[in-house]
């Protein structure tokens, strides 16, 4: 086997250099979902693509480059997982296009690496056997050897190589073991004759298939690939569009189905029967399993997690703990950052001369951008917790638990996974809907993913909750603040379910598809994966604060500062500042907006902050910071929360921000779609062009109406109740 054959003390070649004329080796990583393709891809290329313990993490093709130990340059493609070549969901189609050489950019693999999960080899060999017959060099990457060993499974690799007729390389991609051997195997595989089918069909079957095979061959397929395609076409009942492109194929297919029926073979089960029949023999030869007594650890965990009563309770408790931790763990870190920014702002303010420049730096940048940056700890904790859910294997369980509810909605449990991803960010959430085969269901899910409260709302929620909800402790150790946050997330989630139900009964009418979902074995979340995720998201947040939010803060500062108006110098400074602010461009815009937000109980300052946050939600916080920075006579940068609490209505002297106003505002942010990236991705994923734009418009419109209506309801009912 190749790993053994590797010389131990090979003199390391001087810096690997590829001959200038040698072509790049193109390598495609395919395999069942959740087998470790992306883990392997990251190990090979040094990139940091997202990894997680559930099916459907990767939904795009991603290219990366590396060099083999011999110096050959390799272009490597990470692809979405797929269970077979008859796949029908949009993510699986992406993998298929590449495999069948139909990719729009013409990328064709020189060698296909089938990443197989050694712990579930039998199921993984189905796709592998199909790929072997494509007629392209294949290497089997036998990944997760450690997990297989832990399950008492041992695999005889030479025997497997003999049975499959292609190189097989055992790996532990997570630890980078076997990576070099895989590179060498790929270089060797391209020099070997193309692999082909390893089992024979009964003569009567071969005869029945012959007309189909003939037509496919005439269309340019190799014999092996034509036979594969014939078997595959018989197994699927719907017609794929490219069938019509091969003359006479559809007719030959119907004819073959009839002929097979006459000899007592159901055409749709011919492929699975023959493949799994052969796979059974291969597994019997190459795999030995120690009999395990009792239930596995994973099953025992499921006994609790999927328990009828405990399961849902655990789910809610888990969420409550998440949101609790956002307040309790993050508080000290947040205070530290807040203090740091305040000190820096004051220091810089002291150095700069009094005037517009100082105001720009202190009020525009420190109060604006700084006001957003203080939420970095919260964002990091949220991503850490979501990362733990994703990498432990809980996601699929949550989907299973939700299947019953989702079915009432008109979707199936799997649609809940994109919705859960939406807690992090709606963009990957919408992308993740590619695992849903049915177009109606997929669209309905896309429409509601942005209702799941994403991390960009967290600064708004935490600012308002931290300022206006008392930090009192309730029984069981839960804090009122954490529970309020949980309430906002639940509100969004329930709304998402409700709206999806409406879409499924109106615009996107269709039957409920049944759920098919693989539950992966639980795993300890990898510290590395979590670290990478949190780091990437934290950096993204900081970069956003430093770019988009910084730019918007400067624009808004300028609007809040100019044009200068003449103020009455006899008034106290605070009043002067206030008059100045009201006379500024922002103040004038605010006065225009004010009638719109009056019914919700807001003044013009909240009105413009909301308007500005349509560019990005966090801008609400930075705009408030800037407005209250410009509008104050304070020399020091003060925490925004304290300023909000102190704000009074100039006429009545009552506080502007009551708990009711804050609650209404949060509810507004639960529902409003204020994210250009989400709209852009909705346009693309809903079909692009006019169609995509109209779905995006519907999404934006209904969410705005919902936001306004709900905020109005909260304020009106609250007032009527005397708050």
């Amino acid at each position: 086997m190749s790993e053994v054959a590797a010389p131990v003390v090979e003199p390391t070649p001087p810096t690997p250099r590829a001959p200038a004329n040698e072509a790049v080796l193109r390598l495609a990583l395919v395999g069942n979902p959740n087998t470790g393709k992306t883990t392997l891809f990251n190990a090979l290329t040094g990139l940091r693509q997202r990894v997680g313990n559930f099916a459907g993490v990767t939904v795009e093709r991603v290219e990366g480059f590396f060099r083999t130990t011999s110096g050959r340059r390799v272009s490597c493609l990470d692809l979405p997982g797929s269970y077979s070549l008859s796949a029908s969901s949009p993510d699986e189609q992406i993998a298929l296009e590449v495999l069948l050489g139909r990719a729009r950019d013409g990328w064709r693999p020189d060698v296909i690496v089938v990443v197989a999960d050694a712990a579930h080899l039998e199921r993984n060999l189905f796709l592998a056997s199909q790929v072997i017959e494509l007629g392209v060099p294949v290497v089997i990457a036998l990944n997760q050897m450690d997990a297989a060993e832990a399950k008492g499974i041992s695999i005889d690799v030479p025997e497997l190589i003999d049975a499959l007729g292609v190189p097989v390389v055992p790996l532990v991609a997570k630890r980078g073991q076997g990576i070099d051997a895989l590179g060498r195997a790929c270089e060797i595989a391209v020099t070997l004759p193309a692999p082909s089918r390893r089992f024979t069909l009964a003569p009567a079957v071969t005869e029945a298939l012959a007309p189909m095979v003939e037509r496919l061959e005439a269309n340019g397929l190799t014999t092996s690939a034509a036979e594969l395609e014939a078997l595959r076409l018989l197994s699927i009942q719907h017609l794929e569009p490219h069938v019509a492109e091969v003359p006479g194929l559809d007719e030959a297919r119907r004819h073959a189905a009839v002929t097979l029926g006459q000899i007592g073979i159901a055409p749709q089960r011919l492929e699975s029967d023959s493949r799994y029949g052969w796979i059974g023999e291969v597994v019997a030869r190459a795999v030995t399993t120690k009999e395990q007594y009792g239930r596995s650890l994973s099953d025992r965990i499921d006994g609790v997690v999927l328990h009828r009563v405990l399961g849902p309770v655990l789910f809610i408790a888990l969420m409550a703990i998440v949101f609790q931790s956002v307040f309790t763990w993050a508080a000290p870190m947040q205070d530290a950052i807040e203090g740091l920014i305040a000190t820096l702002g004051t220091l810089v303010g002291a150095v700069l001369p009094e005037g517009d420049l100082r105001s720009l730096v202190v009020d525009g940048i420190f109060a604006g951008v700084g006001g957003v940056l203080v939420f970095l700890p919260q964002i990091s904790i949220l991503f850490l917790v979501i990362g733990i859910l994703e990498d432990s294997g809980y996601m699929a369980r949550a989907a299973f638990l939700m299947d019953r509810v989702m079915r009432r909605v008109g979707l199936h449990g799997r649609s809940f996974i994109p919705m859960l991803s939406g807690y992090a960010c709606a963009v990957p959430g919408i992308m993740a809907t590619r695992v849903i085969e049915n177009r109606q269901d997929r669209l309905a899910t896309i429409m509601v993913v942005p209702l799941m409260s994403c991390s960009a709302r967290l600064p708004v929620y935490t600012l308002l909750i931290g300022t206006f909800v008392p930090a009192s402790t309730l029984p069981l150790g839960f804090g009122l603040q954490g529970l309020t946050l949980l309430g906002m997330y639940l509100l969004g989630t329930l709304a998402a379910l409700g709206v999806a139900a409406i879409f499924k009964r109106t615009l996107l009418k269709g039957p409920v598809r049944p759920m098919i979902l693989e539950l992966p074995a639980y795993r300890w979340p990898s510290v590395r994966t979590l670290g990478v995720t949190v780091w990437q998201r934290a950096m993204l947040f900081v970069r956003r604060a430093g770019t988009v939010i910084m730019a918007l803060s400067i624009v808004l500062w300028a609007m809040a500062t100019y044009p200068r108006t003449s103020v009455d110098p006899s008034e106290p400074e605070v009043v002067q500042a206030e008059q100045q602010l009201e006379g500024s461009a922002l103040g004038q815009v605010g006065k225009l907006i004010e009638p719109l937000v009056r019914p919700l109980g807001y003044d013009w300052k909240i009105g413009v902050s909301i308007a500005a946050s349509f560019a990005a939600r966090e801008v609400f916080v930075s705009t408030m910071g800037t407005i209250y920075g410009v509008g104050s006579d304070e020399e020091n940068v003060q925490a925004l929360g304290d300023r909000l609490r102190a704000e009074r209505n100039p006429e009545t002297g009552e506080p502007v921000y009551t708990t009711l106003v804050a609650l209404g505002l949060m509810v507004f942010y639960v529902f409003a779609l204020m994210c250009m990236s989400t709209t852009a991705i909705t346009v693309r994923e809903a079909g692009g062009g006019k169609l995509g734009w109209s779905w995006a418009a519907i999404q934006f419109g209904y969410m705005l109406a919902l936001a306004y209506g709900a905020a109005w309801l909260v304020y009106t009912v609250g007032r009527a109740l005397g708050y």
Partner: protein
Amino acid sequence: MSLSVSLPVLPTAPSVATGGPDGLLEAARPCTLSQCRPGSRATVLGLDDCGSDEACRLRALGLCEGTAVSIVDSRHAMVLDVRGTRLALGSALTAGITVQPLPAAARSARG
């Protein structure tokens, strides 16, 4: 929604089939997968009452005619052990799969 409650006769069949060590095994009658109890095993006979797309998917996943599956958990949906993998299927599918319940004692060494 679940059919298993409304058909009181069939669910008891698998447990009846647990014959003594030398006694004859009374073959249980075929039923739908949704009628099987957690902890029992069954061989798939047909996927005819699932939608054709779903049947194709299930076959690729290793749940094809002749496969022995164990029922790990059963409620509105089911969790099955199929060729060593854990598969969750919605009730519309489990009600469309016909199976032959297997006697509980015949646990074969499966990987």
